């Protein structure tokens, strides 16, 4: 799997990097088969949706997003995700016609949303909870064998920083070597 895939960490499970299906699990006890690219829960109608969009468009092999299970009460995050794909956002960054309480997209730009709308086809299985029904749609999507969308789109990059703390005196002292007279023989490198 390319290192660039899925740059924004979350509570998702990755399976086949070449898989064309991602599954969003709402309020349902369901584990998709290993042939999907990625699956995970969706809770919130703002940051939760942003993470799904950022991670899905990072893998151009993903062409279908299946949203299944009962929608999340109050948040209505599943329906808000479907609304984002259909309608995009307004000038206030609110998902147009989303039923959630606070469906605002603040960490993605319009280009990323546009890419999401073009790369992905949504299978709206909100309210569907039967394993065999969801599995069938996954099989149908896989059977289409769609081509990759092209290059990954990295909407957000989390860059590791140096972890050594220069003001950590314990770390500094551990590197000092004293001689028998109590004088410093060698400092840390």
């Amino acid at each position, binding site marked *: 799997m390319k290192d660039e895939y899925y740059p924004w960490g979350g509570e998702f499970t990755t399976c086949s990097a070449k898989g064309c299906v991602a599954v969003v699990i709402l309020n349902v006890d369901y584990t998709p088969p290993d042939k999907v690219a990625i699956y995970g829960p969706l809770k919130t109608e703002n940051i939760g949706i942003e993470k799904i969009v950022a991670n899905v468009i990072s893998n151009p092999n993903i062409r279908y997003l299946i949203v299944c299970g009962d929608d999340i009460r109050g948040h209505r995050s599943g329906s808000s995700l479907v609304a984002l794909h259909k309608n995009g956002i307004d000038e206030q960054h609110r998902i147009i016609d989303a039923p959630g309480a606070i469906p*605002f997209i603040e960490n993605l730009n319009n280009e990323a949303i546009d890419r999401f709308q073009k790369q992905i086809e949504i299978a709206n299985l909100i309210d569907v909870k039967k394993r065999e029904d969801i599995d069938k749609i996954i099989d149908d999507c896989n059977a289409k064998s769609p081509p990759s969308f092209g290059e990954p789109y990295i909407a957000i990059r989390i860059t590791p920083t140096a972890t050594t703390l220069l003001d950590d005196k314990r770390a500094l002292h551990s590197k000092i070597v004293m001689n028998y007279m109590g004088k410093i023989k060698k400092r840390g490198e």
Partner: protein
Amino acid sequence: MVDKEVPLIKAKKIPQKDVILDPKGFFVIEVDKKQSEIRVEYYSNVYKNKRIVSGILEKVLSGSKADALCDTIVKHVPDLLPAHYMYLGRELQNAQCALEKNTKYVQGGC
């Protein structure tokens, strides 16, 4: 004879509805069992009509121990409300327990 009197204060939990949201932002805590680490995302608040509606991702901190994450948060995200730091300490300890015992972690409220 008593030289000094010191108050004994009984602990009392503040109801969720009375918790003051931190104007500096909020955190999302997740346990990544695949990487064996706790990931903490720090967001600054986004307001619409004087109401917090979302956040801008500012920093991501990761580690496997609550104490290290607490120290790192204090260093890299200064000036939070004291109650917010204490909440993070509790939650990160819960997250560490979930990571070590391989149980599900769900971030709790204040």
